[in-house]
């Protein structure tokens, strides 16, 4: 879109104009009093406004948790919806403090975009959704198909790799946003839609007739999604990373938003460190953080599992069962693993 183009141009010029020697992001956020968080804004389960207009989802929860830890108040977040194409420029130019927009960690992004991936808040894999009427049973039957995709994503690249690897041809239809991609698929501009499987479930649930589409069994890629910060600000990098780790540690330790009050008298040194009652954990990251920063995050937002079940778990429209999936804790057969908080 032209508007998007103008935005990119503005963002590019922000790279030109933004102050060269800025203070750390943590200090900037604290003096501003709000955290500016880049999200998708249109992806149920990850970040989408609810009926009351409040941003909801596992990506949004990262923003709330960081705000709770840094500012003491999870509501002090300003959300900036970004398209896949705009997001890295927006982050690198300082338009947003954190990018929490179902973003896949890859080498090229790490190495060339001037950004750092903290950790993962959802581990996904790419799949295909097709119209049931086509009678396609496997992604390998898609030779020659037209495929709707969000332009500028790793999804687009994985799809290209997959078809090349299997000697198949395809016609991509690249759109800007997830809703536009869905409209294209629903209107018949393409035979299949490709995205991360969690998103396919969300998109399918939004079709006029969800039963008219099926999700194919193949998972063609690894998509570790997580919050991203600018390169060159280690304090901020550690802050965001450890807020996420703390949410995972809280789940491991059985500390949740509902029982955190009673846990304050716990004798377990691990819990004491998490709550800021022993040692200098938050203070160790930066003297500007209050030592109960992790406690605030867990108390106001919840632990990793709470956030998952609230937004993408079995009892949500997205309906992704956590037990036995890669998104379960390492101790329960998944790969979600946080370093020890000490």
């Amino acid at each position: 879109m032209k508007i998007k183009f103008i935005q990119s141009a503005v963002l590019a010029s922000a790279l030109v104009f933004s102050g060269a020697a800025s203070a750390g992001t943590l200090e900037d956020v604290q003096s501003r009093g709000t955290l500016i968080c880049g999200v998708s804004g249109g992806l149920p389960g990850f970040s989408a406004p609810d009926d009351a207009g409040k941003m909801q989802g596992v990506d949004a929860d990262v923003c709330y948790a960081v705000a709770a830890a840094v500012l003491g108040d999870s509501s002090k977040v300003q959300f900036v919806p970004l398209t896949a194409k705009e997001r890295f420029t927006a982050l690198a130019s300082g338009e947003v403090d954190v990018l929490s927009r179902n973003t896949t960690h890859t080498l090229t992004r790490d190495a060339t975009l001037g950004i750092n991936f903290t950790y993962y808040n959802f581990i996904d894999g790419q799949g295909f959704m097709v119209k049931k009427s086509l009678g396609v049973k496997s992604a390998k039957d898609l030779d020659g198909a037209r495929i709707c995709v969000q332009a500028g994503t790793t999804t687009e690249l994985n799809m290209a790799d997959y078809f090349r690897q299997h000697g198949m041809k395809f016609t991509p239809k690249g759109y800007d946003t997830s809703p536009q991609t869905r409209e294209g698929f629903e209107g018949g501009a393409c035979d299949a839609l490709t995205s991360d499987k969690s998103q396919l479930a969300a998109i399918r649930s939004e079709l006029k007739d969800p039963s008219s589409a099926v999700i194919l069994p193949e998972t063609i890629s690894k998509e570790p999604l997580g919050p991203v910060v600018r390169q060159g600000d280690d304090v901020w990098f550690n802050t965001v990373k450890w807020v996420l780790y703390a949410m995972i540690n809280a789940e491991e330790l059985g500390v949740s938003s509902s029982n955190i009050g009673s846990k304050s008298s716990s004798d377990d040194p691990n819990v004491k460190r998490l709550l800021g009652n022993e040692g200098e954990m938050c203070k160790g990251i930066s003297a500007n953080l209050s030592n109960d920063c992790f406690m605030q995050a867990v108390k106001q937002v919840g632990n990793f599992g709470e956030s998952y079940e609230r937004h993408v778990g079995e009892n949500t429209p997205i309906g992704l069962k956590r037990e036995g999936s890669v998104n379960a804790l390492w101790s329960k057969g998944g790969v979600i693993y946080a370093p020890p908080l000490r």
Partner: protein
Amino acid sequence: MVKKPSQHHANIPLHRNPRVRAVVFQVVAISLLLWFLSIIAGNTVSNMAERGITVGLNFMGQVAPFEIGYTPFWDYELGVSKYWEVLVVGIQNTIFVSIFGVFAATLLGFIIGILRLSPNWLVRKMASAYVETFRNIPLPLWIFFWYVAVFLPILPPPRDSFILGAGFFLNKEGLYTPKPLIENSVTASIFFILLLALVVGLFYLRRWAKKRQDATGEIFPFASTALAALLIIPVVLFYALGSPLHLEYAEMGKFIMTGGINLNFSFFVLWFALTVYTAAYIGENVRAGILAVSRGQSEAAHSLGVRHTPTLRLVVIPQAMRVIIPPTISQFLNLTKNSSLAVIVAYEDIVNVFAGVALNNTGQALPIIAITVLLYGTLSLGTSAILNWYNKRVQLTER
């Protein structure tokens, strides 16, 4: 007694001397500009260094890791083609839709503009309604509307294409036409040479007809003759030479049709939306131009016995062109720039594939945006240059 100028200047103080002041102000202005530019440059470099981003054009030589759907003028191959080819494809697709859009919008705009002044009440009001509808709703909404609400639902999926006959098919992938392939290169070249001769012949016929009309006043029906010749002669030639070309028809593959020439659906919707939108503005320019021609001109023509249509064509429009062209140039430029909304219909123009996808995959925001800006600048200045040249030709020459 007249004072010498030098003596006069010697009397006023330096700060009030207009020549000194002019020079000083210009030096100050340029210094400020240079200072500003150097701050920007320095700031950019240090921001980049801080974030570990290296800027350069090296990425242009790397293989682009993504596929492009519609590349009618370039042999783009996934896994082989480089980023510079992405740029080329983007430029081609932008120019392609802009050129078609400019011609169609001009044609439609003229019709609308003339209808706006029609003596018929209903026609006039309908033309006004057209202009107001399209001018007052933002273009992105129109593009999305035409795509999602009109053309996608109307057209059938490739399996159930509308069969238009003679190897033409219409479906959600666009229009498919037969593709001529050369059967016999000798007779084919004779065929093309004769076609060229026909066009040259028609050109001379027109000159002859004009000369004769100037000399005798007799009108030769050139337009209808040329049309008939262009429709009939190639067909006769084609069969006389034993069909030097054969046609490849589009066939249904598993998902889409293969073979033939495909006029892409995304291209069509974008072209359509740009055309009907810009035509509303061009129509207003045409109306203004026609109204600017004094009534006396058409009254004089009428009193000489010239009828309504020739009066419009031969007397009013040529004079109106002087008023119409300058504002219409900016509409052409607007159309070209508005084609950057292509991503709404998944059309692969330069902003979509280069300033969008390529930027996202390389992170080279500065060079890519700079190239894109330069490109639009070049396109716009080029269009202006051509039309200004034409404008000079049609302007009143005073002798």
